Structures are given as C-alpha cells and as structure tokens.
C-alpha cells in the first residue's frame, strides 16, 4: 500500500468523484462524507509520501509500469511532497466547511458540486506530483474546467465571471501547450527531467525555438496564476463564486500554478538558463513589484469583502513570482514557503468571508458590524489570518516575509523589499478597517458613555456552526504552527533549493 502512496494521493479523490457522480444522484447524502473521507485519505497519503521522500529521496513512480520517457511518470521530490500535503490539507478543510453551504448556495446540486470538487482536487494534486509536461497540461485543464463550473454555480454574476475566466484560462492553457509542443519538437521528449537532459545533451539552449517555448510556457502559466497584468479574470470569479468554491479555489489555484512555474523553471529549463542566460530577472522583479502594489492598492478600493481578498491574492502572487526571480537561494526558499503559508492564510480569510456571508447574507464590509461580541471565536480565527497577511510574528506570514525580504536584500533588489513592506502596511490598513467595523460598529457612538450601541443591531446573528468553525480555527492553528515550525519546513524546502544550482550562477 505504502508503495502506491504517490498514486493514491490523487486516486482517492478521483475514484471518489466517480462514485459521487454515480451514486450521488440517487443518494445526495453520500456526497459530503465521501468527499471528506477521500480527502482525508489523500492527506494521509501525502504525508506518507513526504516522510518517504525525506528519508529516501526522490520517488519516481511509473504509472502502469511504463518506462519513461514513453510512459507517464510521477516524480515526487521534497518540494512536490510538501506542496501536495498542503494542497490536500486545504482541500480537506475547505470540504468540511462546505457541508452546509453547498446545499444552500448551489441550489441542491450537491452531487454535481462534489463530483467537480473532487475532480478539481485530482487535477491540482496531479499537477503537483506529475513529472510529465504533457500530463501536466491535461491536469491543468482538468482543474481549470472544473473550476469554471464551480464558479458558475454561483449567482448570476458568477456566470459572467466564469465566462471571462474560460476565455483567459483557455488562452493560458493554449500558450502552455504550444510551448510544450516546441520543446517536444526540439527534444523528442515530454518527460520533464528527460527534456532537461536532452536540452543539455543536444546543446540547444541557444536555439530560438527554446526561447519561444520558454516565453510561451511562462506567459501561459502567468495567465493561469493571475500575475499582473494578466489578472483580470480573477477578482470577479472569486468574489461571485459560491463561498465554498472560492474557499478552495482562492487558496489553491494560483499557488499550484506558482509551483508549476517553479517546477518548469528549475526542472525543465534549469536555473542556468532562466537566470543565467536570459537576463530578465530585473524586469520580472519589477513586474512583481507592480503586481504587489496594484493588487494591494486595488484591494483598498473594495467594499466587497471577498473582492478585497481576491485582489490580495494578486498581490501575493507578486510576492511569490518576485521571490523566485530574485534568483537568490533565500528568495526561492521564501517563495516556496509562502506557497504553503499563503495557501492557509488565504483559506483562513476566505473561510471567514464565507462564514460571514452564510451568517449575514451580506457581502460588503458593513456586514461585520459588531461581530466581536456576536461571533467571538470566528473573529479569533479571522484575526490570526489577518495578522498573518499583515506579517505579524509568530504567524506564518511573518516568516514568509522574513525570508522574502532577506532574499530581496541579499540580491540587492531594494524595490522588491520596499514593495513587500508597503504591501504589509496596506494589509494592516485593510484588516484593521475590518477590525474597526467589527469592534466599533459601522457607526460608532459619539462621545463617552453610550456603550450599548451593539444592541440596536440584528441580534439574531450568533456564533457559526461547528462545521464552519472547525476548519477556520484549525486553519488558524495551522498558521501558527507553520510559523513556529518554519525552520523544519524550510529544511524540507532547502532540500529542493540546494539542488537548484542557484548559488552557482550568481555573480
């Protein structure tokens, strides 16, 4: 069984999705438990794989026993195992949250929802562990098509947002496929490691075709991760989707695409080529600075809670792209650590937004009026997520900034350091605005003495049910744990980074 763990990571959700699709139509009640169980099994498999990778090194799993480069290979190193664990855990927590909200928000299309949900997880987890560039394309499309549908299940405006996403996402995927085509023509291989070996063996790094392939693949992946200025599809999609969908898409889709970018950059093209031969680092870091600032400032202009969070995702994508293109060991460690940290931070605040929507039925910030007294535990969970996004120690977000800023200083990219600090401060403004509304009420009383304004509001609002509260508080606890144990996580990441050759190419 443990030998098959790499495949089981995604086979559990995959088979569960088939069962849900078939059985769920007659017995919708089976969908939720099956989803949670299969996601839980997937988390266990990921952890087992992570432990094995840490002990024995890279796992190469040949699907169906076919030898690469002909057959499809799952190739799991420390990075893949770590991200897979985070992705499956987020999938599990978001699934638990969805218990009440799926029937409420999708008009009783419960089995359809969970079928898509499980397929989405299959796609995302597959992207993380596959070692095959074409297989990656298939999985990107699996996760993309399911996310279009998951978003479109929302209210009317969601359909339009999903349509925009379909157009943009399809362009991105086509770019990627085209790039892989170029690589296939030049190297005759689709296996990532094999492509890299062929590139070296044939000495064709100078070829224009490889340059074109690199550009196509990078731009394709950037569209998929909503890297500014290719981000237009994201805000409305995540703001109008059902809260259960945005709770899983928001944390995962962009983060997994960052992982894909790192994977392609380092495993397929190699650090020598990306940062040594092409001198684009400066430009891309400046683009990420723009992404961080535009994302943060746009978030300031929002009054819709989830839209604000969606713009923050765009800023966070800038953090990670910038961190990778600093071409610095610690910057790369920071970026990868931030994939993990940000997945849970985003999950935390999107779960919070979902709970608020479920409880008050409102999307704007004023819905939070006086919630500290009405929903104290929910607010505690939110505070941890907010502090993490601001970067207050000892939450996970502080340590990702810690490593990213170190990378920025060490590589001399001060513009990136300043952008990170400015974005932290803007996040502080954003979240303290929310805290103020929840603490003072939307219209605080004039003068001292009138402390009972909270009573005039809708007193029916009470603490969230356990199925919502548990994932929120678990995520908050995880954020603290990820922060406090950052050294151990970084040790795993360093395993990957030490093989990336980054140190060698720096001036």
């Amino acid at each position, binding site marked *: 069984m443990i030998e098959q763990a790499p495949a089981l990571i995604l086979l559990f959700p995959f088979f569960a999705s088939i069962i849900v699709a078939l059985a769920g139509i007659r017995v919708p009640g089976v969908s939720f438990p099956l989803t949670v169980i299969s996601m839980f099994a997937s988390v266990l498999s990921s952890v087992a794989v992570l432990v094995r990778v840490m002990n024995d090194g890279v796992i190469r799993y040949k699907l169906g026993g076919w030898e690469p480069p002909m057959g499809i290979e799952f190739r799991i190193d420390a990075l893949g195992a770590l991200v897979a664990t985070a992705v499956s855990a987020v999938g599990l927590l978001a699934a638990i949250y969805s218990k009440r909200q799926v029937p409420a928000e999708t008009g009783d299309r419960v089995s359809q929802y969970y079928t898509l949900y499980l397929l989405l997880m299959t796609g995302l987890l597959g992207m993380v562990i596959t070692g095959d560039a074409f297989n990656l394309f298939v999985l990107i499309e699996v996760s993309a098509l399911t996310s279009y549908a998951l978003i479109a299940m929302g209210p009317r405006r969601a359909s339009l947002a999903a349509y925009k996403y379909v157009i943009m996402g399809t362009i991105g995927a086509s770019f990627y496929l085209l790039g892989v085509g170029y690589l296939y023509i030049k190297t005759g291989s689709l296996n990532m490691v094999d492509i890299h070996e062929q590139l070296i063996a044939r000495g064709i790094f100078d070829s224009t075709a490889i340059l074109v392939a690199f550009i196509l693949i990078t731009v394709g992946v950037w569209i998929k991760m909503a890297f500014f200025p290719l981000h237009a599809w994201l805000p409305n999609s995540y703001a109008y989707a059902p809260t259960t969908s945005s709770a899983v898409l928001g944390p995962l889709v962009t983060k997994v695409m960052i992982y894909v970018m790192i994977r392609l950059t380092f495993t397929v093209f190699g650090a020598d080529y990306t940062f040594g031969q092409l001198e684009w680092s400066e430009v891309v870091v400046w683009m990420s600075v723009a992404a961080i600032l535009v994302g943060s400032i746009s978030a300031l202009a929002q009054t819709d809670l989830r839209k604000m969070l969606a713009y923050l995702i765009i800023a966070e994508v800038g953090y990670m792209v910038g961190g990778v293109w600093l071409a610095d060991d610690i910057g790369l460690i920071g970026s990868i650590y931030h994939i993990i940290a940000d997945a849970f931070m985003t999950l935390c605040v999107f779960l919070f937004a979902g709970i608020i929507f479920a409880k008050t039925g409102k999307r704007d910030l004023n819905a939070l009026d006086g919630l500290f007294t009405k929903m104290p535990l929910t607010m505690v969970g939110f505070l941890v997520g907010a502090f993490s996004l601001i*970067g207050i120690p000892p939450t996970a977000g502080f340590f990702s900034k810690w490593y990213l800023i170190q990378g920025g200083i060490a590589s001399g990219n001060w513009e990136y350091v300043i952008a990170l600090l400015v974005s932290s*401060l803007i996040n502080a403004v954003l979240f*303290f605005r929310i805290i*103020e509304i929840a603490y*003072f009420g939307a219209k*605080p009383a004039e003068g001292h003495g009138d*402390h*009972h304004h909270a009573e005039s509001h809708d007193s029916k609002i009470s603490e969230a049910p356990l199925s919502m509260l548990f994932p929120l508080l678990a995520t908050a606890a995880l954020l603290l744990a990820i922060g406090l144990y950052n050294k151990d996580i970084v040790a795993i990441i360093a395993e990957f980074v030490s093989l990336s050759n980054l140190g060698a190419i720096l001036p």
Partner: protein
Amino acid sequence: MSSSVTSFTPVLASIVSLLAVLPIVLLGRSPNAREGATFVAAFIKFGLVVSMLPAILDGKTVEYTIWEIVPNLEIAFRVDSVGMLFGLVASFLWIITSLYSIGYMRGLKEHSQTRFFSFFAVSLSATIGVAFAANLFTLYLFYEMLSLATYPLVTHHQDKEARTGGRTYLTYLLTTSIGFVLPALIFVYIKTGSSMDFVSGGFLQGFVGPTETLILLLLFTFGFAKAGLMPFHSWLPGAMVAPTPVSALLHAVAVVKVGVFCIIRMFTGVFGIDFLKGLDLGEVITWIAAFTILASSLIALTQDNLKRRLAFSTVGQLSYIILGVALLTPQGVTGSMMHIGMHAFGKITLFFCAGAIFQATGKKYISEMVGIGKRMPITMIAFFIGSMSVIGLPFAGGFWSKFYLLWGTVSDGQHAMLVVLLISSFLNAAYFFPICFKAFFCSKEESLFEARTEEAHPCSVAALSVTAVLSVVLFVYPEPFFSLAEYATAYYMSL
C-alpha cells in the same frame, strides 16, 4: 559578568500574566474574584522578578532558551541588570495600577471590564518579554505583541474619539515597526549572520560601514516609535483617549518605556557604545532628542487638557532617556537607565491624580481645576510630589537620574546638551507648578469647588499615595535602581 544561571523563571515571569487571562475571563461574572485573579498574577509576577534580583546583583545573568525558530536565531530570555531594572518597575507598578484600576473602573462604571483586565494582563506579559528578551528577534516579537495587545485598551470606550485615537496609535506604531525596524532587523541578520544576542560592545562592529551604521541607527531609533521621538510622537497624545489606568501604566511606564528600553538595547547591546563613539554618531541622536525635549515641553505648556499635558511631558522625558544614552558617557548611560525607574514612579503618580480628579469631579481641563486642592488634598499633594520628581527637584527620586544626566553632559564637554536639560527643567516647572499653585492658593471667589473634602474611590487614593511616597523614598534610597544601572553601564561599556 560572564557567569549565567539557566532558569525557567524569566519565561514564567513573562507568561504568568498571559496565563492569568484564562481565570480572568472565566471569572468575568464575579468582579471580585476576577480582580483577585489579577492581583494573584501581579504578585506572582513581581515575586518571580524579585526572586532573580539577588543573582543579578551578584553579577550573574539568568537565561533560558525556548527554541530555535529560524536557523541560528532563538527565542530566548536573558535577564541582565538593565532588564531587571525595567522588569522590576513594570511588574511592581502593575500591582499598584491594578489597585487603582479597580477604583477607577468601578467608580466610573465602565463597560467590558473583563476585556479590559484581560488585555492589561497580556500587555504586561509582552512588557516583561521585552525586558527579558535575550536578542533582537525576541525583542521584536514582544514589541509587536505589545502594540496589538494595547489596542483594545486604548480604544476601550469604543466611540468615535477612541476610533480616531486607535487609528493614530496603530498607524504610527505599526508603520514604524514594520517599515523601519523589520528591514533593519533583517539587514542586521544578513550582515552579521549571528544570533543577534545583546552583548557588551555590541555585535555590529566589523560587519557594517559607517553609512550603513548611521542608517541602521536612525531606522532603529525612529522605528521603536513607542519611545515617542519626534516626529513620531503623535500617537501618544492620541492614546490619551484610553481610560486613565491605561494611560498611567502603559503610556507612562510600560509601553513608552519599552520604546526607550529598546533604544537603550540598540545603543548598548547591538551597536556598542564604543563603536558609536568611534564613528561619532551619538551626536545625531542627541540633537534629535534635544529638539524633542524642548519642543514637547513648549507644546505641553499650551495644553489645557491635563492628560494631554502629561502626555507631552512624557514625550519630553522619554527623550531625556534617549539623550542620556546617546551622550555615550558612563554617567549619561547610568542616568538614562535610572530615569526609566525614576520617571516611572513620578509620572504614574501624576496620571493617577489626573484620573482621580476625573473620577471625583469629572474635570479634564486644567482651567477647571482652580481650588481643587481643598476638595482633594491628598491627590493634589501627591500631584505636587510627582511634579517634583519629573522636574528633577530634590526630595524626589527624579533628582538622581537628572543629576546623572547632567553629569553625563559635563563629563564629556557636551555643554549644549547641558543647556538643553536646564532649559527643559525650567519648562517642566513652568507647566506643572501653576497647576499645584492654583489648586491650593486661590481666593474663595476664584475657587471652582465647594470647601468640603471629597476624594476619589479609596482604592485609587491608596494607589496614588503609594507611588507618591515611593517617589520620595527613592530620593533617600535610590536602590536597587542605582546599583542596577551602574552594573549595566559597567558591563556594556566594559568599564
């Protein structure tokens, strides 16, 4: 000074008040038991701090490492003499302030008292954490914790004014700590690769050039904005919207002293006095501090709101401490450390008095306090003693720290600073004595109060009497602050 004792006590001393939050919240429905929990925690905390005093006076340090959080960087506690000095002041005054708070909060029938006492306890944990932090990283951790834990206290009234005050508070404190201190911290970490422990002579020498040192010095000095150095001082008058016990303990002692304490740590344990002297960088900071001292004293003169006047006075007094350490002379550093303790007792007395006046009469403005000495004699005598201590007149503890600060300026020929300190003392007298004078000496027609005597809640009066008496005691017997400051100076300046 090299010998050290490993003990869990410093950690306990910090977290005991954090743990007290649980009983405080659980006992929220019965106020007496809840306040009992606060008192028990406060006494245990003070007891734990005092229990380490003999070892410190013996020339040892008490250390405990919790864990290595980032490669090479630990969350660690280390109690040395200057940390002990600050720890003693903060934990002792917490007991007195708890007594005072009970009188104040009940006297005014404030809402959400459980929340108030809970966050008060958390703030004290953070304060002691800063005092006993062994390295820059741990220090920063607790510094941030303190900013956030005090926010609900500052904004306690939850009205429009509190919201504005709270906004200013966090804007200043978070902008400076995230914008200035954090990058400086990471820069230092990269450059030195060290564990950033505070050591004699600092650990920066040899790793950074003169320009970098100047920039780092400015980033740290302004970044720890809790010290209220101009132009980052406006949060302090803004924070006066808080209930008075908060202003008294946090914004005259704990929070602001954390700011100057951090700056003292930077000068002594990070940069090193000799290193700064070699680069002649102390002068930059002394001039900024001198400007702050004079400007804030002049502004204080114009304030009619008593708490705001006290706040501006605090801004000035904090800069005395910064100026003292930036003089880079042994007497200056000693005076600066002693001033942490001496000013604390004097200023907390003044705030207690301001709160007692508000409790008993509802008056906030100085112009409304003519003749109040007849109505509240104990309070106003305490106020007079507190003023003397803050001005630095004999028969109050403040005299000694001022004396050392003046000596510090003379010993190195920094006469301009001597003049600044003297002018400031004169200004201090100018903004305090008229209040005392008008309180007692006015004709019947001028007096705004009836002749009957009526003090505030007994708990409050007891608290302010204790701190006033102690201010005088500290003049006669300035121990242990004096020894602790001397030890610390000797250690950090390798004398």
